[in-house]
């Protein structure tokens, strides 16, 4: 299995992918701990799984459909009741599109 020890640079990259701020102390700690865990999971490489289908789910379920019927939805006030910040009937966030990223 193609594993190598996760270095600090890789930890920073993964943290960015996960949109997760981590401190420098956490970067060092996670590099060590995650590498230990990755070493442990290496043992899966002992198994020949070329002809084994993956199991994503324990039940043989296919899509479950329902009638496309109109039903009551949550009142806006309820849906917004836990919002950290709101404006009118909306969740409020910082500007998403600016000149640099547009």
């Amino acid at each position: 299995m193609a594993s190598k020890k996760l270095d600090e640079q890789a930890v920073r990259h993964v943290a960015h992918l996960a949109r997760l701020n981590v401190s420098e102390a956490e970067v060092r700690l996670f590099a060590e701990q995650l590498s230990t865990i990755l070493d442990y999971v290496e043992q899966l490489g002992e198994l020949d799984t070329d002809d084994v289908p993956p199991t994503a789910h324990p039940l043989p379920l296919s899509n479950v459909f329902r009638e496309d019927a109109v039903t009551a939805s949550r009142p806006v006030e309820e849906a917004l009741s836990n919002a950290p910040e709101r404006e009118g009937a909306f969740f409020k966030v910082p500007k998403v599109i600016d000149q640099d990223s547009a």
Partner: protein
Amino acid sequence: MGGIVDLADDIRSGRTSSEEAVTACMEHVDLHDRKLESFLSRDRTYAVKRARSIDEARARGDGLGLLAGVPLAVKDNLCTTFSRTTCGSKMLGRFESIYNAHVVQQLKSAGAVIVGKTNLDEFAMGSSTEHSAFAATRNPWNRLCVPGGSSGGSAAAVAARLVPGALGSDTGGSIRQPASFCGVVGLKPSYGRVSRYGLVAFASSLDQIGPITTDVRDAALLLQIIAGHDDRDSTSVNAAVPDYPAAIDRSLKGTRVGVAREYFGEGLNTEVADAVHAALDAMRRAGAVIVDIHLPHMKYAVACYYLIATAEASSNLARFDGVHYGHRTGSPADIVNLYAASRGEAFGAEVKRRIMLGTYALSAGYYEAYYLKALKVRTLIKRDFDAALQQVDVIASPVSPTTAFAIGERLEDPLAMYLADIYTISANLAGICAISVPCGFDSSGLPIGLQLMGPSFGEEKILAVAHQYQQLTDHHKRVPPDFE
């Protein structure tokens, strides 16, 4: 406090009232929970009011549900419109759900009075309840030890007889392992048996909700109430719900109990092994047939699980973004900073570690080597169990390799913590049902658990064997000395 079935009978027949039972329960919690910190929140006003309404319904002669007036607790990753739903996380420290989980609705419809929400490892990620952002719950048998986890609050509260029963959730052993550490009964139903609607998702292909009780009869009753199809969880299977309380009377005579040597290898504490073998001997004497079976891929379960569970968790926890609910950072520079800072500030170390591992296992270049590989190994593990359960009715094993460990002992060593779940994880990967029942105590007085696993949607089988075993022993009747 007696068990659920007995208390429900007492309330129905008028020997006691729900208000008396609920008030006694809340006083017990007030008196003892400082020593345990098994509850994160409780609402006495709400509970007493609800108990009175049950008593009034009874006085009017209204039909009463199977749990009418009985106080129960639920793990704090189950959404309730009363109290907060924190998941043991700073992320949801002030979160108030706008709906009830399906299982909460089911308990309420049956007349139960939910008195509070119990502690857990943050987002159910852990095996000791030390990863709660709010408190480390202690084991009622020895308060220097962990209660197990992640449903450690539910298990400790039931073991200390603060409540007669509680719900937990189990993704890799989070009901069974704390039940074992605390000397109570914990049932993980088959995947799809119970709706997960309103359970804050950790790993969606593994999570199930189930009961923690003092005996198997009570577990069968709670399963009866919470099992069944619900349109709001498309993975809840539309299959008839058997009469579980009736199923437990089936005799052990002729029951084939499988024992796999893979569960008795290196790392298993000898006192735990001896207690499990003693339980098997007791079942044999009562007419069960012990059959040797083989589960060759068992040793890969922990590795397989920690790739799949963390991959699913990294995806599920993406919803905590500081926008719709939960913690938001002070003054974000931009939207990416809003996400990353809110998450970095509010998630604890174990949750971060798992999001990182899962993100890595799913990331470009590693997906096939880690995540896809784990899904294939999951197939091999599932095939082992499917084949074994053709030969036997149930499979018996220890629940965990050791009894409860000391608080702090494994906090710095995530892998050692993960190995506490080595015997429980396979049931989640295979989607089968499993139960933990007390089968003895070690030399320092800590409880030992016996695990019984059965086929998918075969809860009647494991409940029957577990109940018949409890007729032969009284381990489950012992109460921690400080809580008698």
